[in-house]
């Protein structure tokens, strides 16, 4: 019995503990992201935002959550019950599992796998299922239209995200997220990657269905899009999932382009600040860009959205993969080979 504990029980307990350590702060961050969104938008629109619950409205997210919990879950009569309930759970679960590979500090990662970036890409490409399933299972035209729009949109922008990731990989030579953060990049390579950073952030907006690409919700035409029929906890899960995905995308941006937990520009005297604080600060910065664009930009029309994805981003990022690869080869910026591959062709 004791052996069973040391072999399976202990590791399991440790892993569960680690998971809780990740999920706990994450949920807190997510709650205060909604608060931040309202405050930032209010500030940009010369309002005050939430001020009633708690000092400066700081308890507002908790109040919102409690309210949603207390409501009744309504399942429309024509809905496909199983899929209807599965969809929000899937969305929420997917937004959490991606965090398994995100390193928030040197060595602070649940699963340091070799193909970390591909794992992230795979999980983020699955997000579309929750929305598509919700749209279909609701048995409502608005929801279905929202679901279809979002599926087309997410699949389109995934393509350019993939190519952006490829360029970053070219410059780092590894699929492991920790190694991507630790890779030394000369300044000119960083400059070369800057356009890809811009594309990535914009595509991340589209991938998370955020303004100005929030057509799946499009409240002015589709009422509420895919989540029109959802209420109470099922709605809360979608809501949580959306904000969690925002944080995830911000974390991906941080890892790929902003140097993760490392001190900005390697300034020596700032090194007393622990790495995860830098990580959080950088994520917060990217999230601010998200909120900023929501407060500033009008929504894209559907054909404009598709045009941007397929006719602007895709050709440009394809071209840029070539440019970066060529520049790395001829400028000597290729990452050093880490392993020796012995292969004799018979």
């Amino acid at each position, binding site marked *: 019995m004791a052996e069973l504990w040391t072999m399976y029980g202990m590791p399991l307990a440790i892993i569960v503990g680690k998971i809780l350590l990740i999920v706990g702060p994450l949920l807190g961050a997510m709650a205060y992201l909604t608060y931040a969104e309202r405050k930032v938008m209010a500030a940009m629109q010369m309002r005050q935002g939430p001020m009633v619950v708690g000092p400066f409205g700081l308890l507002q997210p908790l109040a919102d959550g409690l309210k949603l919990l207390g409501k009744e879950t309504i399942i429309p009569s024509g809905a496909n019950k199983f*899929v209807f309930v599965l969809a929000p759970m899937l969305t929420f679960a997917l937004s959490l599992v991606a965090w398994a590979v995100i390193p928030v500090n040197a060595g602070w990662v649940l699963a340091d796998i070799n*193909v970390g970036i591909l794992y992230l890409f795979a999980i983020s490409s699955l997000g579309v299922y929750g929305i598509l399933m919700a749209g279909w299972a609701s048995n409502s035209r608005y929801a279905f239209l929202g679901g279809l729009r979002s*599926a087309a949109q997410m699949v389109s922008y*995934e393509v350019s995200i993939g190519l952006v990731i490829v360029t970053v990989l070219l410059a780092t030579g590894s699929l492991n997220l920790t190694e991507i953060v630790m890779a030394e990049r000369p300044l000119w390579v960083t400059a070369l990657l800057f356009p890809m950073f811009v594309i990535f952030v914009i595509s991340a907006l589209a991938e998370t269905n955020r303004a100005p690409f929030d057509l799946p919700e499009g409240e002015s035409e589709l009422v509420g899009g895919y989540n029109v029929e959802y209420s109470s906890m099922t709605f809360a899960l979608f809501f949580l999932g959306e904000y969690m995905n925002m944080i995830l995308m911000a974390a991906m941006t941080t890892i790929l382009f902003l140097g993760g937990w490392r001190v900005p520009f390697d300034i020596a005297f700032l090194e007393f600040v622990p790495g995860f604080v830098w990580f959080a600060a950088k994520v917060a910065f990217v999230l601010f860009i998200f909120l900023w664009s929501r407060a500033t930009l009008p929504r894209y029309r559907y054909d404009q959205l598709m045009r941007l994805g397929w006719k602007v981003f895709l050709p440009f990022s394809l071209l840029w993969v070539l440019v970066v690869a060529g520049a790395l080869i001829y400028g000597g910026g290729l990452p050093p080979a880490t392993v020796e*591959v012995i292969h004799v062709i018979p």
Partner: protein
Amino acid sequence: MIEALFFYVFSTVLVLSAMMVISAKNPVHAVLYLILSFFNAAGLFVMLGAELIAMILVIVYVGAVAVLFLFVVMMLDIDFTRLRDEAQKHAMVGAITGGVLLGELAWVYSQWMGARDALARAAQTAPQATKGLTNAHALGQLLYTHYAYLFQVSGLILLVAMIGAITLTLRSRPGVRKQVISHQLDRNPADVVKIEKIETGAGVS
């Protein structure tokens, strides 16, 4: 022990969901089961140590192909029960043919034997395992050198598929006014807006 457990979980779910794909009443459910079976296949790949292939399977098949599948199936308005009844007319013939084929396959595999040096010959093409060799390194080394020819030809095949899809579906519709952003930006208020001072009660001529 844990590995064996996971293997059985993955393979059982894989087989069951694959069976549900062809027997589910609702086509959308069938596609969802297909996705589930892709996932379990990816799990089996991870257990084999082929993590890259597992991820590619999820990204390509689940993330892109199955989405389009689901997309189409959701929009289709086909009476699948009627389709099924049609198919059931030939169920007997199908069952017999399938049964015979299955029997033959079982016979072939029951007498299976490989050439003596088959394994050694198959291993020749693989790169030798060195310390820190990842899937991506090994596959890349093989794909872009030894199999570069096949790689390029597959690229051509995909190009042809793309040309085909566009040729067969792209129609230029007359009368659609496309947005040309440069035209919009070129528009000058001075050319298109006329400001007139109108006398009260006179109107514009």
